[in-house]
């Protein structure tokens, strides 16, 4: 690991501490759910960074892989097979499927051009979206699937009679720490991966494909493996998301909005650093919770001006996100992490 700027280290440390003690620092159902969401999106954004930042390939199917895991968990649970084994099996099947599909797309397209991968993932992801709404019997269609969790994860479950530092020792607390620990484990795993010889080769390929090819590395093999790993990890994040929401549906897991969020997280934070996307994930999730209501306030107060309200209506969230995105790609392609690296 390269040495990090002190401010950056401070930011990362605070993020880590905030997430480690979130239920105690920010009690309340909503803020703990927000913290869970941050953990999940850290994994999702970091796994996307393995594609975008470490192999230089833009995929539009990351939400599809995310959804594979989410539906993998939701399908057995919603059919009454409620248990830890169901969750485990669902996640593994989802992850395996994600890895397979991702590898297939990579093998098919990377023989020609990286850009083919982007186009094909876009097509396949929209097919997945259509299938998720059409195959009602399996996916619940537009409405999605709702389900209940194993007893140990339910709010009514108590593993201690007394509260810990004023926080109820219930299934929610277990759920949060389960999510946070799995997220931490996956994040560390990804850091190991990119620091390993495998990760070094990926970066060499990204820097100079022809040189890497000349040195005898089969670039397509490396990229295919990277895309499979990235997809599988996204699926695990999807499984966690299903547990958090106790619901899975096309708009929550598969929509282009989720894909936009992931792109934004990785680009804001800084591609090719893993820690950058982690910061980006925290920022974007927080912005969703706290900035969008803020736009509503602005909208309400400006309701009688003509054009402006249409632009700051909360539904126009994406307009600003998109503008920010273009500006960042253009002016700060290395994101937050890159901004600290220079000085």
């Amino acid at each position, binding site marked *: 690991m390269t040495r990090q700027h002190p401010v950056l280290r401070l930011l990362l440390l605070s993020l880590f501490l905030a997430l480690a003690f979130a239920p105690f620092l920010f009690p309340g159902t909503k803020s703990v759910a927000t913290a869970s969401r941050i953990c999940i999106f850290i994994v999702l954004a970091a796994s996307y960074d393995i594609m*975008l930042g470490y192999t*230089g390939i*833009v995929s539009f199917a990351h939400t599809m892989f995310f959804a594979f895991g989410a539906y993998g968990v939701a399908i057995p649970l919603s059919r009454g097979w409620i248990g830890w084994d169901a969750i485990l099996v669902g996640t593994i099947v989802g992850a395996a499927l994600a890895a397979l599909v991702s590898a297939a797309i990579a093998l*098919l*397209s990377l*023989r*020609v*051009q*990286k*850009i*083919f991968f*982007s*186009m*094909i993932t*876009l*097509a*396949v992801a*929209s*097919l997945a979206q*259509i*299938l998720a709404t*059409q195959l009602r019997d399996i996916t619940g269609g537009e409405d999605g699937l709702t389900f209940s969790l194993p007893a140990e994860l339910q709010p009514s479950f108590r593993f201690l009679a007394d509260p810990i530092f004023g926080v109820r020792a219930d299934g929610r607390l277990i759920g949060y720490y389960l999510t946070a620990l799995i997220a931490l484990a996956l994040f560390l795993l990804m850091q190991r991966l990119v620091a390993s010889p495998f990760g070094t080769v990926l970066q060499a390929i990204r820097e100079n494909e022809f040189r890497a090819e000349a040195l005898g590395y089969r670039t397509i093999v490396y990229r295919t493996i990277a895309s499979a790993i990235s997809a599988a990890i996204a699926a695990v994040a999807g499984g966690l998301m299903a547990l958090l929401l106790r619901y899975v549906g096309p708009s929550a897991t598969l929509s*282009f909005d989720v894909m*936009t969020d992931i*792109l934004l997280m990785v*680009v804001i934070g800084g591609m090719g650093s893993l820690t950058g996307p982690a910061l980006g994930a925290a920022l974007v999730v927080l912005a969703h919770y706290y900035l969008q209501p803020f736009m509503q306030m602005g909208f309400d107060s400006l309701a009688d001006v003509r054009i402006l309200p*249409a*632009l700051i*209506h909360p*539904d*126009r969230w*994406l*307009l600003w*996100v*998109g*503008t920010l*995105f*273009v500006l960042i*790609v*253009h002016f700060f*392609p290395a994101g937050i992490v890159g901004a600290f690296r220079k000085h």
Partner: protein
Amino acid sequence: MKPVAPYLLLPVIMLLAFPLMSGPSWIALTVAGLAMGMMLFLMASGLALVFGLMDVLNFAHGGFITLGAYIAVSVLAPLTGWVNAGSWELNLMARAAAMLAAAIVSGAAGLAFEAIVIRRVYGAHLQQVLITVGGLIVADQLIVAIWGTQPLPLQKPAVLRGSFQLGGAAIETYRMAAVVLGLLVYAGMHFILNRTRIGLVVRAGVENREMVEALGYRITRLFVGVFVAGSALAGLGGAMWAQYQETVTPAIGAEMMILVFIVVIIGGLGSIGGCFTGALLVGLTANYIGFLAPKLALGSNIALMVLILLWRPRGLFPVGGR
């Protein structure tokens, strides 16, 4: 030099579908497929040429399709009288006004988009994809801010509404009109590309940009022209598709872009002939399968793309050394 097999794919698909349905359905679906293919060709041709010439893949291309569709709606709204008049002159004028406006506004938007966004990311694929995706989000949102999210109705001109009989099949007049217009545009493009100096330079530039510059041609200027023309055609395609569907939603561009990408991958990025063949293939497949097994329509096009990529990894008609 030119491979023959890719050209045979179209008749093969048409023949394969023939025994699976009745004669009149086959005729109707073939016309519908060709009509859809022509509109797809309009939308895809600019994307393919821009990529071939400058190695730029514009993910925001769908924005021009959406824009064209909405411009058509806005132009036709005050012209309802002309659209509904029985007189084909008035019909034609309304229609021409809508399509011309769609093409001009989309072309102008293309000019601005090239100058503001595309020009900064030549040669950097990763940034290109990211920045054009960002541009697409912004464009879509602006369109929603102006026209709203509700689907807007759009009427076909009165004279193009009905259908006529052909070989026992009822053929929608509008589809025939789309086929004719598509053929006209294709013929026009074919003429420009193969019979004019500009076309010669474009074809040469797709193959080897550096050499064209070393011969004294300012290819960046040419590229702006092609980009604008491609955007205008996308807007025209969007306007036609919207009239065909008789309704416009903000998602129209995104939906069509999926098919457009399939078209250019199948056709081989950078080739106009390939783009044309690819568009017709996708249009026909979508209609045949949409009839035989409606739920498989998009899936069938993706399957078609996968099969073609397995057979010819660079598409049916690859161009240049890239």
